[in-house]
């Protein structure tokens, strides 16, 4: 899916009745099948931007277009993954993954067949019947990833999906995400705090200013794919990571 944001801005009502500019105006074009990471200082409106693209939050000004059509509410072609795994505690792992299918009216047997096929890929084959409270943070995020995969989205929105995980689990899950994405033709927009993660995953890294967030840098990442952990230590990677870092620091200063 081709995505185009035109002059998006979001204001929130402040505590004293005034208006608080949270985001933008910001414009951004994302090509079909492109993986874009958005980085920026905390509170710059990255998550708000993702919510606007997901159709969960109406922008104060501007329009979002997907394949030339304007988005004003959630679309079935778009899936979103949140910072928190956001699972339903009363549903087992397989029922959490199958939720989008159930809402779409897919019969039970077909739902479970789809999930059973997916579980090994997510390393969750022994946890189909487990409840979210029995899972580790990394496993819970894998369930959330599974819930996104079954939707077969053409646009995948990720709001700091691995932000709450430890560094190693985070790296592992990011690479698993890349495997899922490869060859799917999905367009991905991901918000992250982590510069290495952004450079390792993305085709393009967008650096946002502090609030109200605007684009201050748009950096192409032309590292070869498939990406591997070893690339974290190669020179081309380090140069790009430094470039992203200095763009953020210049903005934060």
């Amino acid at each position, binding site marked *: 899916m081709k995505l185009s944001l035109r002059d998006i801005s979001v204001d929130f009502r402040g505590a004293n009745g005034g208006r608080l500019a949270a985001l933008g105006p910001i414009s951004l074009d994302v090509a079909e099948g492109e993986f874009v990471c958005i980085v920026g200082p905390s509170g710059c409106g990255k998550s708000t931007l993702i919510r606007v693209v997901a159709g*969960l939050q109406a922008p104060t000004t501007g329009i979002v277009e997907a394949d030339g059509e304007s988005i004003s509410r959630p679309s079935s072609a778009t899936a979103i993954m*949140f910072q928190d795994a*956001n699972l*339903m505690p*009363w549903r087992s792992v397989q029922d959490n993954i199958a939720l*989008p299918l*159930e*809402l779409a009216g897919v019969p039970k047997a077909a739902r479970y067949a789809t999930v059973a096929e997916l579980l090994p890929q997510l390393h969750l084959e022994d946890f189909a019947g*487990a409840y979210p*409270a029995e899972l580790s943070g990394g496993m819970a995020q894998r369930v959330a990833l599974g819930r996104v995969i079954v939707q077969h989205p053409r646009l995948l929105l990720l709001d700091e999906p691995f932000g709450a995980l430890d560094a190693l689990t985070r790296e592992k899950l990011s690479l698993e995400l890349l495997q899922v994405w490869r060859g799917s033709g999905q367009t991905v927009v991901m918000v992250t705090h982590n510069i290495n993660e952004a450079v390792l995953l993305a085709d393009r890294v967008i650096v946002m200013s502090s609030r109200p967030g605007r684009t201050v840098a748009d950096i192409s990442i032309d590292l070869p794919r498939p990406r591997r952990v070893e690339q974290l230590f190669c020179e081309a990677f380090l140069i790009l990571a430094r470039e992203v870092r200095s763009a953020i620091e210049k903005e934060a200063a």
Partner: protein
Amino acid sequence: MLLLLLVWQLITAFGLVSAFLLPPPAQVLDAFVEAVSSGLLARHTLTTLEEMFFGLLLGVSIGLSLGYLIAKAPLLEFILSPIIVAFQSTPIVAYAPLLIIWLGSGVESKIVTTAVIVFFPMLVNTIAGIRAVPPQLQDLMHSLNARPWQSFRHLELPSALPVILAGLRTSATLAVIGAVVGEFVSSGSGLGHLVTLARNLYDTPLVFVSVFTMTFIALSLYGAVALLEWRLLAWRRRSSAS
């Protein structure tokens, strides 16, 4: 329970209290056997059970649906809460006579007293439960294009269920009170009526039999709701075991 029985037996055996005020357990047991074999107890118990059943059905369904509406529309709470609170804080014995005047001294008036008394815990807990549905999960359902009834069925109901069932537990024990209060005011049948009848005949053992039957009904109902919770909230046991 056994300890209580023992103390009771000892007090009566040593003649500490006259048998008229506190009949010995054996005498109460005799009265129980007689009340069962004559069909007296069954008849009155059935009346009370009928009142409780329909009262619970009415009060719980109104409490649930009104609670849901209020949780979704704060304006409705603004309009309704003075009326509801006023109704709730007035002792039901005070206006039970009115209900008898309007609805007669048959089961209908007791169904209403029961409904009124079970309504409030259901209302309060439904509002609290529905309001506590996590907003992130609402976002999730929204992003999945869930229809309103799907959000209700797959998110709001299961999320609020533990709180709603806690309300039902309170309501279930209050149901006996609602029915018996109505029967005390005026009735031709029911356990409350049996107590009045026995008291007028100075038949203290029969008063005890009626009271114990009420206690037994209340406990069974509480147990039934606890069982329902155990079944419906099985995921919680799994979650806390880990």
